[in-house]
């Protein structure tokens, strides 16, 4: 049995809009539609999709914040909306956009309060705080009130706070939003360690594909409430009708060359760009070009993962 099991999960929102002075129209917005997936213990899964695709709605249902409209949900064997309070001990949640810490309290006091709320024993707590303080470089920040921390510092504090009660699962909703490159790198390194050493299962939503590339073997893509891809990051290429590009440097300038199986997308002096399907072999294209023209140089560009995802989003 998977640690997280989601079957035919849907959530709708009823939106009331004013139409005229008194009259109101009601419309039903489908935020998440018939979502099914499972996540095993120890996985690190990236959950991506454009704004409003239903990422946060899914996470909020997995934490018990939102009640699903239909479908079945099981997280660590618990139905989140029925036993939300029991579930809180098994999960940690980090909302990138806002803190779960107490604005006016120094980090150290926030941590101590969390220890008492979650009833973590003192030894265990002290060890965790020491470890996170070292790994996340929180030493100088422990006595600073949260409102005085920078975004990156606050995020580190939030992540430490979410892990203090040794949860099985850590949900991160855009954890690297607004962070600089160095902070992002450090955060990813920390998350990788937490996953490997503590066997914490990670589910993270992000707009930064580097987060996924560096952390997650598995990625789920959601668009307009439906799961459009679930698999290894590399497999996304095959998903899209994405193309590879053959860049040809001819010896002499020429008009667009004619090669079966590929189309010229751009000509710049002797250099020409030919695109062909990503799942087709490059060999016949290269052979055809070399046979018909005098070629000075050749190179093949793989599609960038960003382009693949953009292509998936823009479909339909």
């Amino acid at each position, binding site marked *: 049995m998977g640690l997280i099991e989601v079957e035919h999960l849907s959530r709708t929102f009823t939106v009331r809009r004013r139409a005229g002075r008194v009259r109101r129209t009601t419309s039903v917005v489908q935020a998440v539609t018939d979502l099914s997936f499972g996540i095993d213990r120890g996985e690190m899964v990236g959950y991506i999709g454009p704004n409003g695709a239903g990422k946060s709605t899914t996470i909020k249902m997995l934490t018990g914040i939102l009640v699903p409209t239909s479908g079945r949900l099981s997280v660590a064997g618990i139905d989140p909306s029925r036993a939300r309070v029991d579930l809180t001990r098994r999960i940690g949640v980090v909302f990138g*956009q806002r803190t779960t810490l107490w604005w006016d309290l120094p980090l150290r006091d926030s941590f101590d*309060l969390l220890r008492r709320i979650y009833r973590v024993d003192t030894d265990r707590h002290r060890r965790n705080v020491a470890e996170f303080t070292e790994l996340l470089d929180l030493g100088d920040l422990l006595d600073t009130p949260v409102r005085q921390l920078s975004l990156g510092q606050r995020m580190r504090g939030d992540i430490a706070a979410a892990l203090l009660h040794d949860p099985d699962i850590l949900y991160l909703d*855009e954890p690297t939003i607004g962070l600089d490159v160095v902070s992002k790198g450090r955060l990813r390194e920390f998350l990788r360690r937490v996953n490997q050493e503590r066997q914490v299962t990670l589910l993270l939503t992000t707009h930064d594909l580097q987060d996924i590339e560096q952390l997650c073997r598995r990625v789920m893509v959601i668009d307009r409430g439906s799961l459009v891809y679930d698999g290894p990051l590399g497999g996304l290429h095959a998903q899209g009708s994405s193309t590879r590009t053959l860049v040809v440097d001819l010896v002499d300038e020429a008009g667009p060359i004619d090669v079966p199986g590929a189309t010229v997308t751009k000509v710049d002096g002797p250099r020409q760009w030919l695109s062909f399907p990503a799942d087709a072999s490059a060999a016949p294209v290269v052979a055809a070009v070399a046979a018909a023209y005098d070629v000075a140089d050749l190179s093949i560009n793989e599609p960038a993962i960003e382009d693949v995802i953009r292509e998936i989003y823009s479909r339909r």
Partner: protein
Amino acid sequence: MAEPTSSALRRISWDARAFVMLAGMWVRVSWSYRTSFVMVTVASFVITAVDFLAILVMFSNVDRLGGFGLTDIAFLYGATSLCLGIADLVIGNIERLGQRIRTGTFDALMVRPVGVLVQVCADEFALRRVGRVAQGGLVFAWALVHVDVAWSAARVLVTVAMVVFGTLIFAGIYVLGASFQFLSSEGSEVANAFTYGGNAMTQYPLTIYPAEAVRAMTFVVPVAFVNWYPALFVLDRPDPFGLPSAFQLASPAAAVAVGLLAVVAWRGGVRRYRSTGS
């Protein structure tokens, strides 16, 4: 409800401890700004004291109001103010629920292992609200000393119960009103109309109001059970509106009814909670 009683009890006792723990921490935090704390508390004491002064001024011109003397009115006034004060101290923070929902900080409360109601009330607990408790308590204490009552065990018991269940009635109204904030952000104004409004009306003997108003305060928003009906029993007065004398001992039942309604409304609200975008 569906869960076994023992685990429900365990949860309630844990929630109570969590309340004390969270509230205690906020008291310590506010104590580090003690000058401002003392000023705000004194101000709230003085503001609430002014409206009792108005009653004193009135009684320098008349002997009785609605058939009740000054000490009787002090008894009614003190009881309702003390009840509202305690309810406001413990639950009053709930009026910030709408703001929490709008800013999204409510989400953070939902992922912690303490009931959200407890957290909403205890988080940023404001001890300055003791100003109202102190004022109501003082007037009530003065009334207890001077009121013309032949004290018996039953009257003492009803007096104690009046404070306990009166507080619960106001607390229930607070929670009920707050539950509407899950649907509309104006819910807190509605609740204030019934809590502060109910308090203001029950500061006087209900004989000064038309019978319809008294019925509304009995059957619709049962604030008359906070102090009026038990006070009739303690002061040994027949009901001026001819309502059943059983009402005079029915405050616990009214409190339970309001409390159950509040729990159902709150749970429904939490389940209907929609969170904010992203």
